[in-house]
């Protein structure tokens, strides 16, 4: 059962800067939402208010109509998948142990078969379970990161610039794989990215953030056909321009 999310007047203030300037938003169960914006626009901060790595200054975040602050943060995080740019595999644990860590925290031991299954979900050889993270390429490491996020059978997948450090080919392949898993496992997925092309291709709904506010909330189709306003179109212009240049080269 996928999860739904509601943000109710959420603000976050650090000393002088306002990272979130009053966010009201509802995300339906089962949607794949991309949060796009420049660095410092508040998109990561907004994502982290969900798993309480960031506590809002004011306002509430509701997960399935329940205020996240009323729940135990660690217990709640174990039911969410979290993938982020720095990957953060535990260097002293083998790949299999890394994947099984979430269930282990609540006393469940994942079977070898299950770990193998999870590795296959992200297109990795099950034999990799016995390797150490340092023996893997960056792309392989982030695939393990995704497998780790899925190990606890989450309803909600949070991704913070998940493919930011990967080469373009890996990035494209893994992005497609994650979209595929989103559909297959019936997840609600939130992905923070600064890459509008990635957002347009993978998401059902694109939110554009600027200076702590949501300035556009559109489908990829609407953005592609010029909707969403100035900031959003500024971001859409980049891949559009690239595509046009490519087309010109083909002639």
């Amino acid at each position: 059962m996928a999860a739904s999310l509601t943000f109710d007047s959420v603000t976050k203030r650090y000393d002088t800067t306002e990272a979130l300037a009053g966010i009201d938003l509802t995300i339906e169960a089962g949607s794949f939402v991309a949060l796009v914006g420049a660095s410092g626009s508040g998109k990561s901060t907004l994502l982290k208010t969900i798993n309480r790595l960031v506590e809002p200054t004011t306002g509430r975040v509701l997960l399935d109509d329940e205020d996240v602050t009323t729940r135990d943060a660690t217990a709640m995080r174990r039911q969410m998948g979290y993938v982020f740019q720095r990957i953060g595999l535990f260097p002293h644990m083998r790949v299999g142990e890394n994947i099984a860590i979430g269930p282990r925290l609540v006393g469940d031991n994942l079977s070898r078969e299950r770990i193998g299954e999870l590795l296959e979900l992200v297109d990795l050889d099950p034999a990799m379970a016995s390797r150490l993270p340092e023996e893997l390429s960056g792309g392989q490491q982030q695939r393990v990161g995704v497998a780790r996020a899925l190990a606890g059978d989450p309803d909600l997948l949070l991704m913070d610039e998940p493919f930011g450090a990967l080469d373009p080919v890996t990035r494209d392949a893994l992005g497609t794989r994650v979209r595929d898993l989103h559909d297959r496992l019936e997840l609600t997925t939130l992905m923070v990215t600064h890459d509008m092309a990635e957002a347009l291709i993978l998401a059902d709904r694109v939110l554009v953030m600027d200076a702590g506010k949501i300035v556009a909330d559109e489908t990829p189709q609407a953005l592609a056909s010029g909707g969403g306003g100035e900031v959003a179109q500024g971001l859409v212009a980049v891949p559009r321009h690239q595509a046009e240049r490519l087309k010109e080269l083909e002639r």
Partner: protein
Amino acid sequence: MSGVWTALMGLGGVLAQHVILAACAIGLGIAVALPLAVWASRSQAVSRAALGFASLVQTIPALALLALFFPILLSLRAVFGEDLPTLGFLPALLALALYALLPILRNAVTAQANLDPGVIEAADGVGMNFWQRLRLVEAPLTAPYIMAGIRTAAVWTIGAATLSTTIGQPSLGDPIFAGLQTQNWSLVLAGCIASAGLAIIADALLGTIEAGFRHRDRRLWLGGAIAVAIGVAAAFVSQVDWSRDDGRDTVVIGTKQFSEQLILGRLVGAQLEQAGYNVEYREGLGSAVVAQAVADGSIDLYFDYTGTIWANQMKRTDNPGRDAMYDAIRKWEREVQGSRVLGKLGFENAYAFAMREDRADELGIRTIEDLARAAPRLVAGGDPEWFERPEWFAVRDAYGLKFANQRNFSPTFMYDALRSSEADVITAYTSDGRIAADRLRVLEDPREALPSYDTLIILSPERANDERLINALRPLLGTINVEAMREANFSVDRTDGEKKTPQEAARWLAEEVGLE
């Protein structure tokens, strides 16, 4: 070299004590440093305060830190009661543990601060709570660095533990201090070799554990840990007294750091053993420490000199004459300290100015009055206390002494300084054998500015009315004349082949004065 070898073979007991002391201090250091490091990793303020404090402690010389725990523990008796020991194992343990704190704490805090932030974010992100994050992520990743800190702490602590001899805790410092005092270089060398060897072995074993953590090689770190555990356990086992309790009363004799005190300690110890007592020695205690130690019962008896008690403890600067001073001291010890002055041993060990015969002739000096005239051109040498003592101020003011330069020497090196002309005149001790051996001239004191220094036996308050002990000690009173004491002192201080240990000299002295 065979002397060093023989000395090394005799170090088993103090080696074990040294291992126990260092291991306990490092253990305590770890037990305090690690929780503190965890706390510091969660709070910048705690991190700064803890590291600041540990660095501050580190700037205090180890010897001073050890000495400081004596008054600290003494004042803590108000809280913990009179049974709190102020000398020996406890203060040594506390001072060394404090010393071990910094490297462990610093490495732990640094390792924690340098953890990959991505790993910490992941730990939180997968839903680890405080303890899970500590146990599953932070501890294994910082372990090699913490182990490196423990290694540094171990090497420091093993070295600094030699200084605990000065506060009455047996350690590998015992042979070093005793050898330094009696110029027995084999003993000094043996103590240094044993202490350095121990540090090297500890460093290697802890280094093995560190490498095991670093390479996540369980066999390696477990092997290292087991070897350390066996070593420490062996030290403990060797110190267990397997003999059944023989019901004999144990008397603890304290002595100061110079030969005469060591000889007297052994002389009295032998007498008490004959009388059916077990005897323990706390040798090489500081002058102020030993006096306080007898008053609080950490030791049962010690030897002191009337002039020392008069000036150091009673803070008197007048000189009422020998008998009046003695009576006042007996009264003061009884009423203020609760200790008992049992009586005089028979000889005096007073301060006196001494010069080389040839130099004194050349300058025409026979008395301190003559000395005062020549003083502006002369260098005076004294033991580390002398130029701070009221006797010095008294004699200085009585004769108007003003030297060109004043230098401090350890009592042993003072005579060498005279021989090598680094000093023209020294404050010698009248019972010192080297006065006769070096044919030194002792300057007369026509104005009687220097007080008397009769040697006393002083008993702790608990022993003040112990008739059995008093009867065993009484035959010693008044038996030791200054000539015999000088010869005994010289037999220990001499550096040629005739050199004796304090124990041998004590045996000779007992025979000489007819005690056997």
